[in-house]
């Protein structure tokens, strides 16, 4: 049985079906005029070969083509794009089945940060009264390492609300380079979680090694097709409306291999996209459906997710403001656009602006996590553990997020109101009002153990002091102490024999490790 996710009963819709249609039509017009610039020759040739108007606009030695995509090409591609995408997992019970027209939400980690945030709790003693001590969380930044990636996958394996895993940290060990980064980040992730693993690719030359590794784990090429334990994400479109050379090449290569991939675009309203909602929506939708069209032209029927990471610009610095209210509005609009095409949506929530966990982080992430989850995206990159606009990863924050998501998931449960329930309740009320105390307490008991009552916040203190961080830290240590089901010894041995560049210290079966 695959993971259930949470089916949103009545998904939140910000825009009307008429507005959805208007955005679609505006996007189609944008793809026709002005079209997109392609810095990738092969993509331009593929579009040209399928009837798009392609003009060489190279200049200053930088090859570039203007691609004007006709409506029919887009319509055919949207029709051939799979409406259900399966993301497999080492443990088949962690498989994710995403249907484009079903608002079933799966909560997934992300993105790749350079900075890892450690926390400790030094004790401070009062100057005026030495008997008074307090423990204050202190956060320390450092560059992310492969051991951190293992820990992060390990913890996410045990976080109940995490349905799938996007590598959270960029591995920057001294023995990691462009040529071995991909195999090590995929192996470190796959070896420490039995959930689905998604990642971007640093070096296209490593794609076949990564796929080969996945085949060895899944049990062969056909088994990997049946159970795609890995998937990819590419930002092939740079806003506004430009196919980037290397990521477009990576995208096409993944599509050729038929593995699931996210077509992601991340325009910033105000700088790389119009600041008005209608403008950024028409543009991001054009960028994503252009990418989807390219994927279908490369390999008809290849599974893709409609990836949307729109963001508002800060007015003070013109940097990203993921914590802004508008960012959530754009994301919900994108969820609706993807549902209009019946293509599963990769959406974004929970990204916050501050660099450390705290009140601002909680407010910003909770707001967007709630409202975007309500709209029913299938693949919700909900920024587990991420801070500073996805530049910093903190495991403590991931544990705090898990508690947030338990509440959100509970809230998204369907209402339990029906005729038999109401008939039973009438009898219960009749009985209780006839008693001297008129209390319903005894009727709590069966409900309490059936999962119908939400759990209290797990990190609540005594009411007069706030111990949230300390309690979450205790929970984190418990999770790290739990065992992880690694890839078995035989497969590990084969992987280390056949895949070049893997760091020997990642082999958990190596003697003297």
């Amino acid at each position, binding site marked *: 049985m695959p993971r259930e996710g949470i089916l949103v009963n009545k998904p939140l819709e910000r825009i009307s079906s008429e507005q959805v249609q208007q955005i679609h039509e505006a996007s189609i017009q944008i793809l026709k005029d002005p079209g997109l610039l392609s810095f990738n020759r092969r993509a331009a040739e593929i579009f040209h070969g399928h009837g798009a108007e392609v003009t060489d606009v190279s200049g200053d030695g930088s090859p570039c083509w203007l691609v004007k995509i006709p409506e029919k090409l887009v319509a055919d591609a949207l029709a051939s794009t799979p409406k259900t995408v399966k993301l497999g997992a080492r443990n088949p019970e962690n498989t994710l089945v995403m249907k484009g027209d079903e608002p079933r939400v799966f909560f997934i980690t992300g993105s790749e940060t350079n900075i890892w945030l450690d926390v400790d709790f030094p004790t401070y003693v009062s100057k005026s009264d030495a008997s008074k001590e307090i423990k204050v969380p202190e956060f320390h930044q450092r560059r992310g390492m492969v051991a951190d990636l293992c820990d992060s996958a390990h913890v996410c394996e045990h976080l109940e609300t995490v349905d799938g895993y996007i590598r959270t940290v960029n591995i920057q060990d001294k023995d990691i380079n462009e040529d071995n980064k991909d195999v090590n980040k995929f192996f470190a992730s796959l070896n420490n979680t039995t959930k689905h693993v998604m990642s971007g690719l640093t070096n296209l030359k490593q794609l076949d090694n990564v796929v080969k590794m996945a085949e060895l784990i899944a049990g062969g090429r056909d088994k990997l097709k049946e159970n795609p334990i890995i998937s990819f994400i590419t930002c092939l479109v740079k806003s506004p409306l430009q196919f980037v050379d290397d990521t477009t090449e990576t995208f096409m290569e993944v599509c050729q291999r038929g593995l699931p991939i996210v077509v992601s675009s991340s325009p910033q309203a105000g700088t790389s996209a119009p600041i008005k909602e209608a403008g950024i929506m028409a543009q991001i939708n054009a960028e994503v459906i252009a990418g989807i069209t390219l994927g279908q032209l490369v390999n008809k029927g290849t599974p893709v997710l409609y990836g949307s990471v729109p963001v508002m610009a800060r007015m003070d610095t013109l940097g990203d403001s993921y914590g802004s209210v508008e960012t959530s509005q754009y994301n919900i609009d994108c969820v609706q656009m993807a549902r209009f095409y019946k293509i599963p949506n990769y959406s974004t929530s929970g990204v916050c602006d501050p660099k450390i966990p705290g009140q601002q982080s909680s407010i910003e992430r909770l707001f967007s996590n709630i409202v975007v989850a309500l709209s029913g995206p299938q693949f919700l990159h909900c920024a587990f553990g991420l801070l500073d606009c996805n530049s910093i990863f903190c495991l403590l924050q991931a544990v705090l997020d898990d508690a947030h998501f338990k509440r959100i998931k509970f809230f998204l449960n369907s209402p339990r109101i029906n005729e038999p329930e109401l008939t039973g309740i009438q009898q219960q009320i009749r009985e209780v009002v006839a008693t*001297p*105390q*008129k*209390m319903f*307490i*005894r009727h*709590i*008991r*069966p409900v*309490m153990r059936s999962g119908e009552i939400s759990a209290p916040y797990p990190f609540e203190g005594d009411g007069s002091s706030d111990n949230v961080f300390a309690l979450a830290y205790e929970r984190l240590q418990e999770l790290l102490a739990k065992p992880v089901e690694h890839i078995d010894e035989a497969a590990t041995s084969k992987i280390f024999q056949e895949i070049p560049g893997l760091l020997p210290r990642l082999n958990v079966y190596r003697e003297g490790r």
Partner: protein
Amino acid sequence: MTEEIISLIRENVVQGRVTRDDEGMDEGMVGQPGVTELIEEALASGMGLSDIISKGLTEGMTIVGQKFEAEEYFIPDMLASAEAVGAAMEMLEPHLTRSGIKSKGKIVVATVKGDLHDIGKNIVTILLRGAGYIVKDLGNDIEPQAIVEAVREEKPEFLGLSALLTSTMVNMGDTIKALTESGLRDEVKIIIGGAPVSEEFAGSIGADGYGADGFQALAVVESLSSGTAGSK
């Protein structure tokens, strides 16, 4: 036979089943006799009251307390068990009086004048009954003079006063004044509780104790009763 009924009473206290219609904790218990039916059976067969109380009810509540400590049981489970014991004690009360066995003590409880909120008082009532006290619940919105009359008539060891509103908590003080004026203040220990009151407020109006919640109220009564229980 005796052992079997006592064991069933104990088990049904642990299950929190007052009557045969109650579900309890385990599956398939509906239809089997609950605590009240079993007490009836025990009384009909002439079983000793002290065995019913100590080996059935009290031991059952001890197990419930252990389960609560182990976080296997939650407050609704405790209250269900306490309610079962309370119902049993109500049935046993006339028999106890006849056989000259003293109860743990009598408590009059009331929500004071002007206040209709009684959830807290009702929870305290269930817990006290479950602990073996005889509780006379006067209800809510009770005039000071009505409380004075109840104390005069019932001669309880304890009086529990409850209020939820800042505007009605002052009526707790008025009630204590009325008891003082009637000469009954020293005849009864007074414990107060409710969201707006505090230990400090209890002291300021001349109450003997304060319970922040039902469990604390019971603990205060137990602690004060060490010198007064069964004295009347």
